[in-house]
């Protein structure tokens, strides 16, 4: 499985975490783990994400998170050396 790790610096505002999570899921990635810590003047979120399919760009996702209003900076901490992605989600249609 391809896993990428971000550290996201943001304002301490209600809704920011939910907004970050929404962007990740909306843009074709899955949140695999999440750690939120208060730091001076804000919040630091460490999040591991994994892509659906093989065409997702981690840099595009980084910029899509960074453009959120209350997000100050997004650092890509550990970049997977694997090509995305060997992890397969069961499509909803198949479950139904």
């Amino acid at each position, binding site marked *: 499985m391809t896993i990428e790790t971000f550290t996201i610096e943001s304002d301490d505002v*209600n*809704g920011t975490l*939910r*907004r970050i999570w*929404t*962007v990740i899921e*909306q843009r074709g990635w899955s949140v695999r783990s999440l750690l939120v810590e208060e730091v001076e003047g804000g919040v630091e979120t460490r999040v591991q994400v994994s892509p659906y399919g093989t065409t997702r*760009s981690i*840099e*595009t996702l980084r*910029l*899509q998170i*960074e*453009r*959120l*209003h209350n997000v100050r900076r997004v650092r890509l901490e550990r970049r997977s050396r694997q090509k995305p992605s060997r992890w397969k989600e069961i499509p909803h249609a198949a479950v139904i």
Partner: protein
Amino acid sequence: MSSTAVAEEVPKDQPRTGARLVVEALVAQGVETVFGYPGGAIMPVYDALPGSGLRHILCRHEQACAFAAAAVGRMTRRAGVCLATSGPGATNLVTGIADAYMDSVPMVAITGQVAQPVMGTDAFQEIDTFGITMPVVKHSYIVRNADDIPAIIAEAFDIAEHGRPGPVLIDIPKDIQMAEGTGEPYAGRVTPQPCLDEDGLRRAEAALREAERPLFYLGGGTVRAGAVAEVRRLVERARIPAVCTLQGLGILPTGHEQFLGMLGMHGSRAANMAVQECDLLINIGARFDDRATGALDRFAPHARVIHFDKDASEISKLRHADVAVSCDLKPAVRSFLPEPADISDWRKLNRSRAEEFAPSYDAPAKGIYAPALLKELSERAGDGFVAVPDVGQHQMWVAQHCRFSRPQAHITSGGLGSMGFSLPTAIGAKMAEPDACVVSVSGDGGFMMNIQELATLNRYGVPLKVIVLNNSHLGMVRQWQDLFFAGNRSEVDLSDNPDFAKVAEAFGIEAFTISEPGEVEGGLDRLLGAKGPILMHVVIDPNENVWPLVAPGKANHEMMEQSES
């Protein structure tokens, strides 16, 4: 229709209700018109409206409020405002908000919410508006303190209108609307200074010097950035051919000698061939949308790409940019000083193709030929013409055949493709620019989705011109079923439509029907000469298709023409 009660002036330092703070903050932003629909959780704001100086337009569905508000943003680049109650009021706004998000249109949506003590209890008309709208807004707020209202509203406009524009939602619990506050001053921290990517510009100029077949690819970002004049000057100075996206139509006036037309699925053959053959594609404010690119891996296969975009996350999102210029488009385009090599042969080739593949209007259809009608309409309406198509076949005919002198002459739902868009959007556009000749053009399918807005048209006497092109089908779906689903026409028959002229008359709107080619000229005379709102119902051939067409999965040069169908 409007209350005569006048709000008492409250000194600035005196407490006032949150609702009063809302309307005062909107007035402070220069808002003149809000589009809304009242309900339980937004009643305090409606109580504060009379005498506030705001003009309230009561649409007949919240979705229409959102479309009309976004139309203000599309016409003026200033955020339009819509207002709705909690629960169904808010959920009805969602399509309009999403439409604004997809087309990067500035808008501020204000929703009432149930009072804070009952939030989370499944209270009457409670819904998580903040959560439901999160994927389709640029930013959003739940107001927790009445004192924050002026700052939040000011910041919301700032966010909506600056950078890459988009919709902002403000959800205000009812108890906050009723609570008293004075309002904290707004620090104004969002609006950034214009940025300029000098390094990117110099690399772009270098790439252009080496190109033999350069081509401009112009998109809606140019319009949203207010950089149309700069881009026109650039294109003319560089003398490089240009194509536009659906949202970019009008950046170069129709008929401009360097303009090859719209690219993509229903683009012109000249535009698509130029894209496929160019060796340098200079993208200004476009996003490589799938309707523009066709098969992405075969799009502009010989080209290096220069990509100008305010939003850095668009750069290399879908197509790798060899040179990225990520900054404000207006100063960037002004500072871009291209010195292309001799490209006279390339220029001539494209010009001759534009002439060779120009559409013909020699009545290939039975009955009224809609493309010819639309072309004539736009020519007769002149420079004040504003077309607001709905979504479907007629939308593509408008894009292909109408003449546009400026981008605001073509207001269309490009990204989301929302049926029901035209009528309420046209109402908003006409209110934003009362002197324009605004024409709502719908198909029979889309028109039925917001037909109730004929009541708004009548209520305010908006002198809008409405055309309903009625082929008694969901035409675009029918076309695809015929072409790609072995002619299996599944659930596209709308032959039980009402008589649209009679419906309009029931709403108090002047209306008439034409169904023969010989009636077109007189119909347009009557439509364009009307002083008040008017509807022209046009019966057209149900089997007419939109040509040319790039089939799904095909590259743009693999266009289907009518003769190949």
